[in-house]
């Protein structure tokens, strides 16, 4: 049985991440390019990493959909990519596990970069993005992935202080 409380805590965290990303992301972005971290992706990765329940996959998809709707990306592109990222992390997490934050940072870094590359690829086919700008955009994605990964341990810390999402959190999960 799905506990409503879990959905509420997920909703509040997702909403908080979305509001901060949209309202403050560019303002606090790094460098003249104002590169911003992807808070929604951090939440998706950590949820898939930490939560015992497969309902966290639904959460990843919902977060991807929120990103689709709050950006100019093609509708469905982030939802698919976040969903696939969630599935990958969910099924391979026992391989990554360790009681340190480095594994989560590495997964977040790779996840962020691959998701952005995939969305860009979809955008070139459908959303009017051009291949000529792929090089510059890739550099930006790399920096953004680094920034996102650097914030992942803080995300872990926050999640470890909040009630578990969708079932108890796994033993040995990063940040425990």
């Amino acid at each position, binding site marked *: *049985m*799905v506990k409503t409380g879990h959905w509420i805590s997920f909703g509040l965290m997702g*909403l908080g991440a*979305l*509001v*901060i*990303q*949209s*309202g*403050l*992301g*560019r*303002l606090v972005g790094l460098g*003249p*390019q*104002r*590169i*911003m971290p*992807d808070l*929604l992706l951090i939440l998706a990765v950590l949820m898939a990493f930490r939560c015992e*329940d*497969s*309902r966290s*996959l*639904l959460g990843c*998809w919902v977060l*991807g*959909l*929120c*990103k689709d*709707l*709050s*950006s*100019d*990306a093609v*509708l*469905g*592109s*982030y*939802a*698919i990519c976040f*969903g696939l990222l969630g599935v990958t992390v969910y099924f391979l997490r026992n391989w990554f596990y360790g009681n340190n934050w480095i594994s989560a940072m590495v997964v977040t870094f790779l996840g962020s970069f691959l998701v*952005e590359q995939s*969305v*860009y690829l*979809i*955008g070139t086919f*459908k*959303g009017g*993005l*051009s291949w000529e*700008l*792929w*090089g*510059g*955009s890739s*550099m*930006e*994605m790399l920096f*953004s992935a680094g920034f996102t990964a650097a914030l992942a341990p803080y995300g872990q810390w926050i999640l470890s202080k909040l009630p578990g999402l969708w079932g108890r959190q796994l033993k040995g999960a990063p940040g425990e």
Partner: protein
Amino acid sequence: MAGKRRGQTNSKQVFAWLMVLSVVALLLPRRLTDGLDFVLTSLLKPMTSVSRGWGLSVTKNLELAKPGSVRADQYRQLEERAKRQRTNLLQEIRQLKELNTALTGLRQTFGMAQASYIIAGVIGSDTSNAHRIEHLNQGVEAGVEAGQIVLGMDPRDGSNPSPGESISQMFVVGRIKQAGIKGVRNTKLELLNNNGFRLPVVIEPGEGRREDWRGQGVLEGNGMGRIVVKMVEIEGHTVQRGDVVLACSDPRRLPVEMVIGSVGDCQADRSNPLLWEIQVKPAVDLHQLDQVVIVNTKW
């Protein structure tokens, strides 16, 4: 135990169907799916506006010097801003002279089209790094249309632009990308540094140069948030750092040429040595915008 397993199976099935739904959404034409963006942004508007306002006030306070003291770099910034505003005024004078000439000859041309100004607040940014797009709190009901030029003001010159009085203090910051849907006051502003942004521009010598020439080119958002101008006709003159970049006047979009920024760097284009690649430094910090003015020529 069995119930929990059933719940897990159901959630996996729902997830699989949602993924299929996403693929279907990908295949749909964009015009069918674009309206949904505006609905979510409108729902989030109160919260994102508050967080953005708070962020702006914090970043503005960090930059403010103690009363009575102005640092050398701040002085230079102020001086540069005053110069750009002067350039805007000069363009207005140029246009008024043309108007005067035309009226004297009792002729009416498209170039003298007047414009009304729609004030809009910035309520949030695009959440993806790939798109430099801001969301505004005005919609089609206010006369906003795709392609309209948007002007912004440096927050340090005042927070609320009042069209007419302070239009010379404003600079081109972008263009309306999508004007939203009926009943939803939300518009997408594509900033100058968005990937793929293009706008015809004119380059003029800067303040210290006693030369009289103009070069035409196309401004482009070129990845990594850079703004470059290519294809400038030099005509025996070299473009230098500090030269002024102006948006070309267009009777349908912008009645008078307005400052975009200044030349930050100028190098020969690697792909074509006959052309210059000019990096543009925008006159306004594009990501610190609080309120903007949309130029509406159809009033």
